[in-house]
């Protein structure tokens, strides 16, 4: 399994090979009422058969234009919204006993699901919307502890204060309300809340997109720090490759609800295979003016098509500069073209193989 | 949409039926009967004959069916107090009066309320805002009968601007209408102000500012529409309250409206008149609420017709 061989190169310390989070054929459909002309039920395929693995201590970047289904993927993994098909498996170590535990997230509900969520937390994109304006910072950070009964009320204070210190907040501000903080500080509050349960996997849904450029790198540094200190695994979502580059070991590129390319970070920046990835990469400004001048910029024609539209063939075909006639009819499959480098494009022969021959389990 | 309208219509009919039935049994359970005064000291035969005339001798269940059949065919029965008059006639005479009073009050309330509310929101935290809201608190705090009395004392007795009471000319409707509408105008004004301020602080308004739309365009295009929602959802209850509030106003200004008739009939146990007015009022109210609901779904894209799902 090529994905399992991933991360031959790594930005920082090399992650282990164990898989902590495994997503297979995840699909989320939103019914959108009925088509006025035909009377057919319209369905928005927000996430369409996404599969990937996340290894312990690894950061998997997930990039794509806004609206391509990244947040929906994240929320479906956490079961915050229902998924229509697919499986999500979580393999973590029990924090008390240290023994491995396995959760089939897609099948859980109620108390068991709550238990699983303890190990899998999320940081939201909008630091203004994701904090309850009526709760003090202390209450916000302490809430997961209260829900899981993890600390008695007198220990809670210490836990909250040490969490605040850990994410770089002044514990003196524990009684303040979110609106008294800046965006970067608010995002730190969100991070502290997510860390309160001591999770092993953290999904970061564009944690810095809403922040000023000046504070972005501080928050990113914090995340890198936390990862090395706590051995966290990140599913790091962003809408541009530039941010992801800083901290991802591997990068997945999404387009219209589908993963089109997954590769180790360095490789995807050096030798992007999918035309969409190439286009995305060419849009990142490069600080070096010499390279910047020589660079070939790939301009995509047209807008991102509506995910409502019925798709035949490759979803990128209508905008692809290298589209071939069969792109409109054959659906390319995500498959390894080089070791640890998967791509879903008919330019690469493995993508043409019938899905049945490669059984992803 | 059609299913939504249809579903609502059915529930409207059910509601009216429910109210009518409840009222029927409530008023019948109350001790006393319509002829208690009239037939004091009359022989039992006379009383019996009188009761038979109005089917009051039958078991309650049969009386109910007779009456319900009448309502369905549009016949609300004879009055038991006013000789020789049917309830339909009484309502036909008094209904326009009540409607005129109610609509004048409603129009006053909405126009006055929305205008002052928008002005106060735009001039937030200025003396204009404080002044308007103080007046609004005044309007809400004063019961309409105190307001009406004040109005009579100041405008009629003292300034002699309005005719005293009665129901002959157009100016007759103004003072009662105003007295009836002020509390509602004040409430609508507050709702508009709060809604408007909230909307003006939202992101999309800031975006609109950023796009360079003028203040007036923003207010009219975006803010007003959002601020309308709480107001529109208040219109239904406001209408009901105005209808019931007119009972008091009619009493103070000696206006021969449906409300006066209703209260009299309830005390006199004029069963058919009581039930007739209840049916008319609830139909009116249900219809109005129905219209409000429809406009609500148009104003707020997030609220989808429930049964259309």
């Amino acid at each position, binding site marked *: 399994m090529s994905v399992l061989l991933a991360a031959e190169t790594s930005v920082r310390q090399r992650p282990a090979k164990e898989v902590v989070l495994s997503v297979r054929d995840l699909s989320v459909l939103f019914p959108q009422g009925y088509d006025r002309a035909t009377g057919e039920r319209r369905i928005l395929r927000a996430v369409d058969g996404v599969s990937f693995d996340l290894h312990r201590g690894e950061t998997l970047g997930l990039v794509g234009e806004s609206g391509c289904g990244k947040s929906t993927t994240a929320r479906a993994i956490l079961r915050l919204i229902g998924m229509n098909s697919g499986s999500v498996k979580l393999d973590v170590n029990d924090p008390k006993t240290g023994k491995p535990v396995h959760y089939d997230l897609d099948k859980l509900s109620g108390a068991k699901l709550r238990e699983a969520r303890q190990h899998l937390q999320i940081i939201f994109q909008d630091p203004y919307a994701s904090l309850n304006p009526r709760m003090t910072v202390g209450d916000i950070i302490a809430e997961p502890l209260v*829900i899981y009964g993890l600390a008695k009320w007198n220990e809670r204070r210490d836990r909250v204060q040490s969490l605040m210190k850990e994410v770089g907040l002044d514990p003196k501000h524990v009684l303040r309300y979110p609106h008294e903080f800046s965006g970067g500080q608010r995002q730190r509050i969100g991070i502290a809340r997510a860390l309160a349960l001591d999770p092993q996997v953290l999904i970061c849904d564009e944690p810095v997109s809403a922040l000023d450029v000046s504070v972005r790198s501080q928050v990113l540094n914090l995340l890198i720090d936390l990862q090395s200190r706590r051995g966290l695994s990140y599913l790091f979502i962003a809408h541009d490759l530039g941010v992801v580059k800083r901290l991802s070991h591997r990068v997945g590129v999404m387009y219209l609800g589908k993963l089109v390319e997954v590769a180790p970070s360095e490789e995807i920046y050096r030798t992007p295979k999918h035309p969409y990835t190439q286009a995305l990469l060419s849009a990142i400004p490069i600080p070096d003016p010499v390279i910047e001048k020589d660079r070939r910029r790939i301009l995509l024609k047209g807008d991102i098509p509506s995910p409502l539209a019925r798709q035949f063939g490759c979803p990128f075909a209508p905008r692809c500069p290298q589209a071939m006639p069969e792109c409109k009819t054959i659906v390319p499959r995500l498959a390894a073209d080089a070791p640890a480098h998967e791509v879903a494009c008919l330019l690469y022969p493995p993508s043409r193989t019938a899905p049945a021959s490669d059984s992803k389990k | 949409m059609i299913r939504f309208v249809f579903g609502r219509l059915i529930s409207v009919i059910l509601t009216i039926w429910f109210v009518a039935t409840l009222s029927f049994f409530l008023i019948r359970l109350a001790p006393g009967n319509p002829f208690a005064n009239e037939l004091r000291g009359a022989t039992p035969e006379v009383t019996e004959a009188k009761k038979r005339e109005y089917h009051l001798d039958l078991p309650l269940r049969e009386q109910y069916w007779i009456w319900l059949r009448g309502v369905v065919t549009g016949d609300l029965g004879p009055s038991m107090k006013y000789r020789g008059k049917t309830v339909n006639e009484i309502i036909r005479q008094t209904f326009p009066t009540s409607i005129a009073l109610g609509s004048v009050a409603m129009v006053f309330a909405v126009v006055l309320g929305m205008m002052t509310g928008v002005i106060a929101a735009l001039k937030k935290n200025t003396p204009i805002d404080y002044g308007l809201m103080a007046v609004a608190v005044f309007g*809400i705090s004063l019961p309409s009968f105190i307001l009406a009395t004040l109005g009579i004392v100041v405008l009629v007795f003292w300034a002699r601007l309005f005719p005293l009471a009665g129901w002959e000319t157009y100016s007759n409707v103004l003072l009662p209408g105003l007295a009836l509408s002020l509390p509602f105008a004040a409430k609508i004004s507050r709702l508009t102000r709060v809604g408007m301020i909230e909307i003006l602080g939202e992101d999309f308004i800031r975006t609109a500012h950023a796009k360079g739309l003028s203040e007036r365009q923003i207010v009219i295009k975006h803010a007003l529409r959002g601020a309308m929602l709480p107001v529109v*959802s208040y219109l239904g209850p406001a209408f009901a*309250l105005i209808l019931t509030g007119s009972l008091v106003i009619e009493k103070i200004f000696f206006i021969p409206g449906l409300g006066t008739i209703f209260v009299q009939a309830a005390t006199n146990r004029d069963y058919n008149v009581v039930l007739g007015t209840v049916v008319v009022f609830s139909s009116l109210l249900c219809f109005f609420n129905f219209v409000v609901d429809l406009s609500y779904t148009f104003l707020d894209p997030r609220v989808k017709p429930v*049964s259309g799902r």
Partner: protein
Amino acid sequence: MSIAVTKPTTRRRAWVEHPLSLPINVSMVLWILSFIAVSLLANAPWAVTPVMFVWLLANSAAIVYVGMHLTVPLDAPRKSESEVVAEGTSLFRDAMYRLRRNQMATGSMVILLLLMLACFSQFALFHLIPVIKGKDRAAFASDSFYALHLDHTRTNEGETYEPPTAQHWFGTDSLGRDLFARTLFGGSVSFLVGIVGTVVSVSVGVSWGAVAGYFGGRVDEWMMRIVDILYGLPFLFLVILIMTLVNGLGNVASSTDQKFAEAAAAEKAGDTDKANAILSEITPDQRTASIVTKFMPPIVVVFVAIGLVSWLTMARITRGQVLSLKEREFVVAARAIGARAPRIIFRHIVPNLMGPVIVYSTLTIPEIMLSEAFLSFVGLGISEPNCSWGSLASEGLAGVNIIKPYWWLMVYPAAALSLSLFGLNFIGDGLRDALDPRSAK
């Protein structure tokens, strides 16, 4: 407009942090409970004495409470910040702090509390003094303080329609009753109707709306359908019909009770035949009316009926807010950290509704007091010998004419009613600003 980052303010000790807060809060609760109990039991002499003692105790505690809260200096330093973390009441604390700084609201609160205390004290003393002195109400000398200023039931044929004098501060009414005492008594009734009605309306309305809005789908559809149907009812008309029924029953019941009393008197005198004759005259219907009225006095029906009228709007407002609130990211975040529905509803959604709920509750108290006044005006609410500000004002309205205006009959109750409604509105506004730090600026 813009969300500015407020500069850190020095934290100050809020008034609820006073060391005596807890006992006093308990006594406030006692105060309200005993108020309700007294009102319900006022007709049952056996219950009055012990309840009244609790009542007076609580009353004095309330005076201390108010006085203390208003005198504790605002800038007293807080306990150390970290100590307060676990308590989690800081939102309320800060809101109270901001409320205290709102002079209009504080002033209204003082006036309203004084008004309430005056009214409730009359209520208590009226019942208590005869018990303490062991005298009948009628036995008090006509120039005693009790008879002049506290007894709202004492009639005096020689002193009808007296304008305000040194003896009768607010004048007298058509039966020569002291209007001062009656205004105070009417205030107790009005406040009681307002408070009980609002508690009923807010708790039913918020829970209903929040549950419907949060669960959505079928649940929402059905719950809101019920609200819609109830909305379609011309409620006050039904209340009028109910009051017609209740008052009719009350009349029957009082004449029946009179007959029972006559029979008992005859029995006592040894005239068993006469007693039996009287008893046999009482029909089963009359008996039922008497019993029903014992359990549901008309005045209680007024509370409940009016209270149950007004929760619908609250439910609708709440639901509308919840519908948009539950899509907010912090609610999703709460689900992600494992919060269950009750916690999400009552800890995340309901506190964020506080603004509209508070504002609407403050509109509800006066609204309910007005509904009661309205009913009394039509002649179907509070009936003699009880009275409320509404019924007093409408009595007074009859005295307004050009020839000989008995203005005091209208002016004092109407002024008291308007003053408290003003106060309630200002407090509501103050609370809204206090609870929503963003709107305070």
